[in-house]
């Protein structure tokens, strides 16, 4: 790995990403020249899986990556694969996931809950009743899909299920399906629902096979999602490049937050979508609804945050994710592991402006039911 770390970085950095709406800040940083203006050109490489992102990053085929935040922590802990310390100077957004159920399961849950409640704790109890009735008649267990063992999607599902007293390892099956195949798996009955990021919830609704039950942010608000991750040795050897890209990402976030750029952003993402074979259903109209939901319209499942505050790398997120990994029995609860998880989040590397005393946008569990 030392050989990769000592390479000069005047060359464009190869950044891997999985084609999802929340790769937007990387797309914008490149297409709008923010990375180049910071003196660090980037080349974006689409990857087919999160496993590929991890493998190619840790062996040095990629310099940096759009990475699931808990997957970066898992690599640093050596869970499931090589132990390679990773670091992140900047996040690539917050929120944006949603839980979508097949139409029959959605109807059943709403019926058991009594109403289409916006409170995930209520619907989780409804789901528990559905599961109980299925067990009573010997029906096969329900299957819900997420995107990777180390993903906030997985943890959001678990938190939701736990709120209804459902044991995700006993009462139903949790499985992983690549996002572009989610809608098809729901259509052919292989799964009964999923938790996935934009645009796939909206695609399922558009196709008429699924109904969004909750946004991810109804379960956990300000939920960490993807990071811009590097190998720790690469970041140590190339601090200027890493800082330059963090700055470029924050500028891209400001650009995305400016409503006058919405058309431009939509077109940029639509263009990126056209280069992917599975993205044929993704129209500019659909993307626009994800990026800027019409007030009062039905939930479109996105609420993806791409603003500057959403790029802030918060140690509290690393600690929360570590806690979810412990709760999901993925790692033992040891102080040194917790310290390792925390060490992935490096606001210093991104030259992040300090936050002030209290984080006004901290994590909130089941935020809607507080009010």
């Amino acid at each position, binding site marked *: 790995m030392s050989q990769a770390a000592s390479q000069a970085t005047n060359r464009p950095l190869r950044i891997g990403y999985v084609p999802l709406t929340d790769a937007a800040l990387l797309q914008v940083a490149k297409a709008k020249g923010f990375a180049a203006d910071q003196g660090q050109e980037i080349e974006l490489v689409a990857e*087919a*899986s999160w*496993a590929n992102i991890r493998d190619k990053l840790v062996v040095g085929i990629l310099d940096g990556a759009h990475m699931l935040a808990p997957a970066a922590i898992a690599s640093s802990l*050596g869970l499931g694969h090589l132990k390679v310390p990773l670091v992140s100077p900047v996040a690539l957004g917050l929120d944006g996931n949603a839980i979508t159920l097949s139409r029959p399961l959605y109807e059943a849950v709403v019926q058991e809950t009594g109403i289409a409640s916006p409170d995930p704790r209520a619907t989780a109890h409804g789901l528990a009743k559905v599961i109980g009735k299925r067990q009573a008649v010997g029906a096969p267990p329900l299957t819900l899909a997420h995107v990777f063992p180390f993903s906030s999607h997985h943890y959001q599902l678990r938190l939701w299920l736990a709120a209804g007293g459902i044991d995700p390892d006993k009462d139903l099956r949790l499985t*992983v399906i*690549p996002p572009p*195949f989610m809608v*098809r798996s729901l259509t*052919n009955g292989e799964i009964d629902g999923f938790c996935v990021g934009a645009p796939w919830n909206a695609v399922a609704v558009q196709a008429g096979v699924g109904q969004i039950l909750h946004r991810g942010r109804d379960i956990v608000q300000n939920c960490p999602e993807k990071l811009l991750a590097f190998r720790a040795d690469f970041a140590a050897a190339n601090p200027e490049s890493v800082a330059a890209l963090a700055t470029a990402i924050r500028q891209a976030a400001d650009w995305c937050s400016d409503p006058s750029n919405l058309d431009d952003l939509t077109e940029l993402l639509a263009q990126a979508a056209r280069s992917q074979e599975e993205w044929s259903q993704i129209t500019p109209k659909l993307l626009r609804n994800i990026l800027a939901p019409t007030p009062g319209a039905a939930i479109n499942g996105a609420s993806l945050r791409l603003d500057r505050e959403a790029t802030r790398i918060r140690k509290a997120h690393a600690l929360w994710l570590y806690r979810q990994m412990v709760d999901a029995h*993925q790692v033992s609860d040891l102080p040194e592991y917790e310290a390792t998880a925390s060490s992935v989040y490096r606001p210093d590397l991104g030259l992040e402006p300090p936050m002030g005393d209290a984080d006004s946008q901290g994590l909130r569990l089941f935020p809607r039911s507080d009010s």
Partner: protein
Amino acid sequence: MNSELRIAVIDKNPVRAAILEEGLHEAGYSLVTRIDDTSALLDRIAALAPDVIIIDLESPSRDTLEQMFQVSRAVARPVAMFVDQSDTAMINAAIDAGVSAYVVDGMKKERVKAVLDVTISRFNAFTKLKEELEFAKSQLDDRKAIDRAKALVMKAKAIPEDQAYAMMRKAAMNENKKIVEIARSIITAADLLR
């Protein structure tokens, strides 16, 4: 001993999968099954109960397999093949070759290493074959372009084939270009002037 290993191959590319299957057979592994990764992957793997799973690095179903190390009641627990740092070189070789492999827990590493050696070499052989085919195809395309341009020159100037070819070669030398570039210019010009 080797013949007892049950190997599953997940690869969308039928030619590469066939090359790998042949290589594994030659190395004495007879229980090789190709599975389609489009749907119900876990059920198929559960039914097959393989000792080793070989998967194309570009298959999105890798993430589905990764989940199987975490939670699974349906299958014997496969784990990532290389979980200790001494295997870095082999992991690099596999990723470079475009392949990844998973094995069930408790499998002796030496037994599996041989499978991965065959896999990496066959994947690399396939890549080389593909490059050679592409090269051959581009040569054929060049040949066709030169023939077509020659025919155009013969017709336009009413001269025999060897003279037409000589003219093109002279033009290429004068302009310090390849003859195929001259041929393509002639074809473009002829299309424009038609």
